């Protein structure tokens, strides 16, 4: 075999470096989402100015940011309320969703008995439930928390139960032939295995939880982003309504990022092969 000299190796590495396209570089990748947002706002601003769109129809980003600054106290106060109800409802959804997901995923009997009823229940538009919740609990925080919970627990339940129900039969046999109890099978294999499904569902559940609490606030509340938007549009303060939307979007992205960070830490094994090492067979 021919020897590989240092110069040849260096040259080969240089070629790899030179040929990495701009869009594949790490720093560029990280900057791209921000670039998209900036361009989006730029186009929006330009369109509003170019076509002289009245502010009460579509305010320019500059007007939206100005309104956001002007009403910052009200926005923060209401955003805090929305964040609180959303996170609380979401937290309850995680607990209930995981427990119910385990119960449904580990028993075909429970699955067959409860699943149709759950699907029917989930199909009911949550906005239709809010007035009933108001009758039971009054307006404000409680209906918002419950709506956020109701809308976000189902994706978690479905995913966790899928993760547990799709356990390989051989794996179950291995454990059962060792005398493992049902509980041991779930704790040792079922739950860890369901984690990637669980985190995937968290991202969906998180965003729909915001939908739930804001819908509830729009229907029946005297605080929260939903309430603020209702008041703003009633007063034709359109830039403020848009500012509230913007804040909601930002909160959603932040929560999504938190869920993503957790996912990466806890289920790194599920996303493998990208930067992972693969060993060649030995001997």
């Amino acid at each position, binding site marked *: 075999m021919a020897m590989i000299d240092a110069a040849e190796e260096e040259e080969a590495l240089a070629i790899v470096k030179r040929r990495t396209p701009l869009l594949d570089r790490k720093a560029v990748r990280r900057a791209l989402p921000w670039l998209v947002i900036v361009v989006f706002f730029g186009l929006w601003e330009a369109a509003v100015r170019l076509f002289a769109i009245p502010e009460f129809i579509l305010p320019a980003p500059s007007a939206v940011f100005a309104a956001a600054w002007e009403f910052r106290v009200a926005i923060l106060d209401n955003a805090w309320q929305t964040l609180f109800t959303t996170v609380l409802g979401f937290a309850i959804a995680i607990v209930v969703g995981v427990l119910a997901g385990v119960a449904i995923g580990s028993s075909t009997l429970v699955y067959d008995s409860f699943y149709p009823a759950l699907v029917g229940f989930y199909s009911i538009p949550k906005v239709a439930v809010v007035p009933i919740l108001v009758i039971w609990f009054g307006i404000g925080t409680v209906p918002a928390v419950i709506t956020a919970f109701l809308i976000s627990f189902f994706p978690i339940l479905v995913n966790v139960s899928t993760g547990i129900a799709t356990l390989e039969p*051989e794996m179950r046999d*291995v454990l059962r*032939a060792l005398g493992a109890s049902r509980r041991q099978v779930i704790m040792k294999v079922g739950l860890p295995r369901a984690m990637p499904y669980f985190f995937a569902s968290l991202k969906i559940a998180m965003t729909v939880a915001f939908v739930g609490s804001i819908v509830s606030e729009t229907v029946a509340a005297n605080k929260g982003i939903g309430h603020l938007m209702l008041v703003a549009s009633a007063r034709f303060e359109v830039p403020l309504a848009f500012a509230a939307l913007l804040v909601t979007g930002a909160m959603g992205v932040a929560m999504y990022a938190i869920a993503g960070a957790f996912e990466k830490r806890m289920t790194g094994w*599920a996303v493998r092969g990208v930067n992972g090492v693969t060993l060649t*067979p030995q001997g």
Partner: protein
Amino acid sequence: MPEGSLAVSKFVELQRVWLRYGEESGTLALRSTTLAVDRGEFVAVVGPSGCGKSSLMKVVTGLWPVSAGTVQVDGTTVTAPLSYVGMAFQNPTLLPWRTTLGNVMLPLEIVQPHSSRLRRNRAAYEAKARELLALVGLAGFETIFPWQLSGGMQQRAQLCRALIHEPSLLMLDEPFGALDMFTREELWVSLQDLWMARRPTVMLVTHDLREAVFLADRVLVMSPRPGRIVAERRIELPRPRTPAMAFASEFAALVHELRGYIGASRAAAPA
């Protein structure tokens, strides 16, 4: 089988076992199957695909209740899943979130008395697991995750997991079915080494006749579904057997003879 009836030290014994999956209309997998395996014996079960070989594994380990007949293991009738059997399958079923060592240690967390001792004697148990991995050529791969191992290495790790708690019964369901020839032969040798070192009772299900002849003390031939044992052949080749022996004429004759039994049973089977 005359031998079955004079059983004294039989470890596994099936008497006229029937197995039907599901209700009355379900598939009949086993039809009046009778067989016996001695303590410490290595038995291979061969047969055409879909003949109920895997069903046999399920009834012996108690994972499926039999429809009729009796299954006895170690002198007691099996009515619930046994709690000490080491199992390995064609699919390595290693847990991707555990390292190789963690996967091998899994049975110790479940099987008594190990599971209650594990916390205090972790170091000793870990040393045992490392020793076992070294025995199959996986020294140095303890902290690697299974998905970073090759298929053959995963199977080796699976064998270690099946053996870590020193089970008296080892059930292997086509464990080398998905491997290439060279890796398979290497693993035959590894498995033989492991078996000779600890002498568990082994039931190996396979459709590879060479594998059966290489590894087993006795080969049982099953008929097509619904399965039953139609022939039995003792393999007297000396141990340890080597891959080179697999090319000897004696070996080839045995494989040929077994092939004959399977051919006959297929011809006799109702279409």
